[in-house]
Every structure is written in structure tokens, then in C-alpha cells.
């Protein structure tokens, strides 16, 4: 099963500085994969730099959030007959050289969601203490609930099988597609597997996560994780 049609979905918000190099690198390293940029109400030339490279762009009329942008991409992928979708950051933090390793479990039919993890192997990545605590907490929670070891719940580098995208196009968190999403997908019976990846520094600009985010994030994700546990699991 190597003939998967794969769409790389790149959510981007004000990424005109980083996006060109990210797209060029993807084209060079993974020429067989189709690319789709979802421009989430950018105020800069994000859509323009992608189109200039002949990359397909879906433009949202205003900012909806990473999750909603990704969901738009899933919808497009499902409607256009793709077998798998990869979530890929616009800022250059993900290494296209690890795309094949990420897709391998899907190609082999071992799982439905493959997660690029920074922590399966030591990769020299160190987050600030508060963020580390949160990551330990959420990965413990997800692993305990799903009985699969998930070390990186916040990874934005994942591959989703078509049947997962079919579900997600209707139901997906608008803001952070993290721990509650994994719990909900696991309870639907989708299998997950982590693949070690290394993450690089973002190419330009700043991360969109702010102080407000870091206060709201634990509340939202703890509550939503709890609710994902209480919701009746639907069948895949």
C-alpha cells in the first residue's frame, strides 16, 4: 500500500516570511505530495506567496483558528478523494525529510493517526517549565485514557487517514487540536502511533501563543478532555 494519495495541509496565518521557504523545501524533498495552504484571514501576503509558487490556496474570509483552518483542509481532502492528510506548520518548524517516516504507519495500515513526537527520543528540545508541566499532565492523561503511550499531545505534525478526516470535517476543535481531540478520536476506535521527529526553530516571526493563551489553554483542554470522556463514543 504505497499508492496513497496524500495531501499536505498547511494552516497559515500571517506567514509570508516563512511560507516561501517551507513550500520550496516541501516541493524539493517530497515532490510526490500535493500541497494545500489554508490562509486563515491573513493580513499579509501569505496567499500571494503561495500562489506565486503554484500552490493551491484556500482563503478564509477572517481568522477562524488553527483547528478550523485544518478542518477546511480536511473537507477539501475528503471531497477530492485523498487517502491521507498531513498537518504541517507553515513556519518551518517541521522537517519535510521526516514526512515519509510519519506516513509509514499509515501506509502499512498500522494506525489511523500518526503523530510526530518531539519526545519519543531525546531531541534536544526544551520547553519552558510551565509548558513542560502541562505537557506531562496532558500526555499522562491521554496515555492513561487511551492505553497508548502518547508523549506529544501538542504536536502540530500529524498524518490522518481518510476515515479520520471524514469524521473531523464535521467535528473538530476550532482552536487547539490537542489532548481532547486525541481522546475523542481514540474513543471512536481510531488507532494512534507516535513517530519520533525533531522540530526546528521557526523561520521568522513569532509564535502566536501569548500569555492569555497559556492561562486559557489548561482550562479549556482539561474541561474538554473531561467532556470527551463523558461523551458517548460514536462508532467510526
Amino acid at each position, binding site marked *: 500500500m504505497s499508492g496513497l494519495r496524500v495531501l499536505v495541509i498547511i494552516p497559515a496565518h500571517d506567514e509570508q516570511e516563512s511560507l516561501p521557504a517551507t513550500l520550496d523545501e516541501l516541493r524539493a524533498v517530497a515532490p510526490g505530495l500535493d500541497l494545500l495552504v489554508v490562509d486563515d484571514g491573513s493580513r499579509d501576503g501569505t496567499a500571494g506567496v503561495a500562489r506565486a509558487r503554484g500552490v493551491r490556496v484556500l482563503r478564509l*474570509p*477572517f481568522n477562524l483558528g488553527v483547528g478550523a483552518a485544518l478542518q477546511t483542509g480536511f473537507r477539501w481532502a475528503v471531497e477530492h478523494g485523498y487517502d491521507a492528510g498531513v498537518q504541517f506548520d507553515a513556519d518551518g518548524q517541521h522537517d519535510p525529510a521526516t514526512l515519509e517516516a510519519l506516513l509509514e504507519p499509515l501506509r502499512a495500515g498500522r494506525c489511523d493517526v500518526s503523530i510526530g513526537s518531539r519526545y519519543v527520543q531525546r531531541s534536544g528540545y526544551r520547553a519552558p517549565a510551565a509548558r513542560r508541566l502541562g505537557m506531562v499532565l496532558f500526555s499522562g492523561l491521554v496515555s492513561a485514557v487511551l492505553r497508548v503511550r502518547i508523549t506529544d499531545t501538542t504536536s502540530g505534525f500529524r498524518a490522518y487517514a481518510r476515515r479520520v478526516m471524514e469524521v473531523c470535517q464535521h467535528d473538530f476543535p476550532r482552536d487547539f487540536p490537542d489532548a481532547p481531540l486525541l481522546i475523542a478520536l481514540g474513543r471512536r476506535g481510531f488507532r494512534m502511533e507516535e513517530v519520533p521527529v525533531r522540530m526546528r526553530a521557526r523561520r521568522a516571526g513569532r509564535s502566536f501563543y501569548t500569555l492569555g493563551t497559556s492561562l486559557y489553554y489548561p482550562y479549556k483542554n482539561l474541561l474538554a478532555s473531561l467532556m470527551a470522556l463523558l*461523551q458517548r463514543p460514536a462508532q467510526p
Partner: protein
Amino acid sequence: MVFLSRTQVIAAIGAVLLVLYVLDLVRRRKLSEEYSLLWLISTVVVAALGFSTPLLVWVSRELGIVQENSTVFAFGLAFSLAMLLHLSVRLSRLGQENQALARELALLRHDLEESGSGRAPAAAPAADRA
């Protein structure tokens, strides 16, 4: 031991029921986590004031409120105001987003009419989407 007054207990029980209802709304996805935050904080504070007389007495004294029951309702009122303000802000944003959608639609319809020259799509019956 200071006895709990009846109003206090009623307010506290009401708050607890409200917390449960809010959580159930989130579980059934009728309410998003974002909106649940203010509801949960406010009801938890009112419940805490209602059930804990020492806390209520202390807060009332610090705020210079003579009637302890008023403290419970003052907090309830303050949170209601905060909620209304929050909703007004969100409503404004929703209005702006709605306008942006309408503008986008006008551009799209223009392009569609240009490309399909002559076969202009009739105005979509808006009532269908209610």
C-alpha cells in the same frame, strides 16, 4: 457557629445546580468551553459564599456590607454584568464577521456571474438555511 440563612442556602443550591447544568451543556456541545469559563467561575463563587458563612461574613465586613445576604446577590449581579458585557463584545465580533462573509459573498457572486455570463444565479432563498 453562625447559622446559614435561608436565602443564602437557596442561592448556594441554585448555584450548584447551575454549575451542573453548565457542565452538561458543555458535554452535549450546546455551550463551548470558552463561554463556560465565566459561568463556572461566577457560580462557584456564589456557591462558596452561600455555603461558607465565615467566608461570607469576612467578605461582607471587608466590603462594608451590613446585610450578608446582599453580598451573595451583589456578586451574582456583578457576574451578570460581566457576562452581559462579554456577550456584547462577542456579538460585535459576530456582526463584523457576518459583514465580512456578506462582502465575500458579493465578490464571489460577481465572479460567478462574470464567468457564467448570462446565467446569473438567482438570489438564494435565505429562509432555507434557518
